């Protein structure tokens, strides 16, 4: 029982990332009808927003402290981050410590902007082109974005730690009445899970309970009619693209403490996220979220020694295997609608 619970928990963090990326992909697909292969790159750019903010906060000036000497006997050079000089050492240190959560504030405008530019500058011209062309041009864009990031930040993973409070693990099982030291779980992953749940809830709430969301849903169902009713649906879809980009970016920001970001993390996630979208059902938002968590948890179960002992290598292929089985038995995915992407 504890073991099962632990595996479910272990699957949640990856599942959250899959769900968030797949949600953004589905939003873009459902509104604009575009298959966005650059979505993984957006996830990566979000992660690098966190890296950038961390670097900005750590920007320091050097003072020479005559009273101390380094091991060579020269006067000690002391690096003081600007934020510590401005806000005092304590507040400054905690700002640096909290740079990953604070990066959310940076990532939202940046990702919205990136999304707008991408949609207006490139994607707009591909509405009427075949899906293959959309895949190819966004694939090219993903390569370009990835290389730009690599040029500025290098090829190595950059460690971006979580705030001190959230570092380490907690004995999660005790809270739920299990024996101590059985279900131990890193705190940040729990934070990530809760964060992604709230993002998902926010997106669904936005679509469900606001007028804007209602119009967007109407546009997803029948774009032309909404247009005839005198609503500038294109503009709203552009905004939705920005929101989808922001969702991917936020998923990236918060993922950095779990896995140090590098320039190809987006591509690694993208392939899996596409599988997730297809399993969930192309164009179905709840399907994307459900499939994201489901596959994340399945992957974690397949990584147990028991499963690997049963079928060697199952942890490597489980997601693809599930995708193949689902696609062959339920062609529209778990929750796919009729008539989406069926030519």
């Amino acid at each position, binding site marked *: 029982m504890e073991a099962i619970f632990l595996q479910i928990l272990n699957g949640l963090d990856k599942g959250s990332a899959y769900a968030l990326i797949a949600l953004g992909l589905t939003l873009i697909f459902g509104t604009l009808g575009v298959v966005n292969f650059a979505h993984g790159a957006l996830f990566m750019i979000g992660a690098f927003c966190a890296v950038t903010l961390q670097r900005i906060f750590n920007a320091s000036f050097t003072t020479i402290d005559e009273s101390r000497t380094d091991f060579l006997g020269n006067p000690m050079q002391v690096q003081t981050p600007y934020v510590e000089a401005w806000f005092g050492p304590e507040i400054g240190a905690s700002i640096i410590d909290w740079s990953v959560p604070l990066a959310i504030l940076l990532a939202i405008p940046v990702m919205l902007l990136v999304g707008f530019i991408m949609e207006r500058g490139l994607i707009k011209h591909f509405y009427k082109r075949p*899906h293959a*062309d959309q*895949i190819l041009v966004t694939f090219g864009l993903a390569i370009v974005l990835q290389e730009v990031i690599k040029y500025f930040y290098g090829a190595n993973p950059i460690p971006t730690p979580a705030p001190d409070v959230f570092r380490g693990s907690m004995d999660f099982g005790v809270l739920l009445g299990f024996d101590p030291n059985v279900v131990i779980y890193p705190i940040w992953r729990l934070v990530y899970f809760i964060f992604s749940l709230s993002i998902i809830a926010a997106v669904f709430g936005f679509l469900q309970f606001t007028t804007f969301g209602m119009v967007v849903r109407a546009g997803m169902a029948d774009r032309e009619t909404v247009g005839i009713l005198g609503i500038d649906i294109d503009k709203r879809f552009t905004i939705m693209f920005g929101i989808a980009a922001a969702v991917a970016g936020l998923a990236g920001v918060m993922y950095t403490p779990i896995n140090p970001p590098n320039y190809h993390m987006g591509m690694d996630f993208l392939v899996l996220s596409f599988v997730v979208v297809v399993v969930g059902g192309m164009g179905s938002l709840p399907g994307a979220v459900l499939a994201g968590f489901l596959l994340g948890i399945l992957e974690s179960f397949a990584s147990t020694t028991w499963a690997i002992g049963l079928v060697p290598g199952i942890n490597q292929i489980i997601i*693809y295997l599930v*995708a193949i089985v689902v696609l*062959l038995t339920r062609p529209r995915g778990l929750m796919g609608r009729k008539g989406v992407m069926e030519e």
Partner: protein
Amino acid sequence: MTDQTTHTPAGATTTRKTRETSGILGLKGRDITLMVIVLILTMAAPILLNPFPADSSLAQFNAGYPDLMQRFVIFGIFAIGFNILFGLTGYLSFGHAAFLGVGSYATVWMFKLLNYNILPGLVLSVIVAALFSVLIGYISLRRSGIYFSILTLAFAQMSFALAYSVLTPITNGETGLQVYTSDPQYLQSAGAPDMPHLFGVTMRATETIEIGAWSFTFNFGYYVCAIIMLAAFYMAIRIFRSPFGMMLRAVKSNQQRLNYTGVNPRPYTLAAFVISGMYAGLAGGLMASMDPLAGAERMQWTASGEVVLMTILGGAGTLIGPVLGAGLIKYFENIFSKINDGVLHQWFAFMPDGIEDLLVTIVHPFVGKGWHLTLGLMFMLVVIFLPGGLVEGGQRIATVFRRDRKATNVEDAAAKKRNAK
């Protein structure tokens, strides 16, 4: 068709026969020209690709060395095969690298078990890739569009993951499969070379000819690959022009209509899938023949993406496009990644210092390690402005010139008329 041949007198069959045998090797008109051009280009490649003298500063743009030329033709084969599937049927496979990898493994296994003669290896690589692609194609082709892409991607990633982990006894995991001295090599005779060879002539056998300042390298391995590529290209022309090729085009243009006319497109698409898988297997086998090593990374989806790039860049659905695309990408990969800041400074040395540094800074991100950026940009530009690839670009330029000529002809005629008056 069969009815006709049985009932009509001999005359009808003879006319058909003459129609079929007209032209060389069953090719006609423009195809012969195309084939001859490709033949000349590949055969003279060691000379054509070395236009700059060996010790000049432009020598780094030379591509006429064996390693690179082999890659040109091998990836050419890969892209030609991919084009038979994507270009004709429109099914975008993101998992073709799996067949390439399987082909490589098969060939290296032949080296390990028999001897270093490449022939059994190549034959086996094609057969294994065919079987593998029948399996994957049979399942994947039940879906079309993006679902097909995802299914092939899933299969390829699965093969990649398995080759890395569980199948280590067959694939030698991360180290990559290679031939060890302890391998049986049952057919290895005493005098035979212990590197890949074709009936005793090693793939590395190279003849260098120096003419003045130029030096040309003729490599046996390259010519083996080139001849195989020519055969593959010829096959592709025949497939493109055959009724089977017509069926594949019909699948691309309107599959629904095909269904309504009572034709089941699945066998045709499966055949195309298997053929392109065999091409990929052959390319993989040749890669292993040039360098007896096979690694799982050849199956990764980035490798599948590469062949998609090649085909699109050159022009999907055209005959010569994929070969051009493969050559271009491999050439740029090689040349661009060699250019460093020193070379750039040398180029822009004639500029004033400030501008020189500025230009070097601007160009720097696009060359050397950043050449993928150039590739991505190039690829995006092609997809945006030239969906038909370089071939379409060439055609557009050709039409512009032709229109000009026509226009001048008209003007000439008008002028003559005026003069006559």
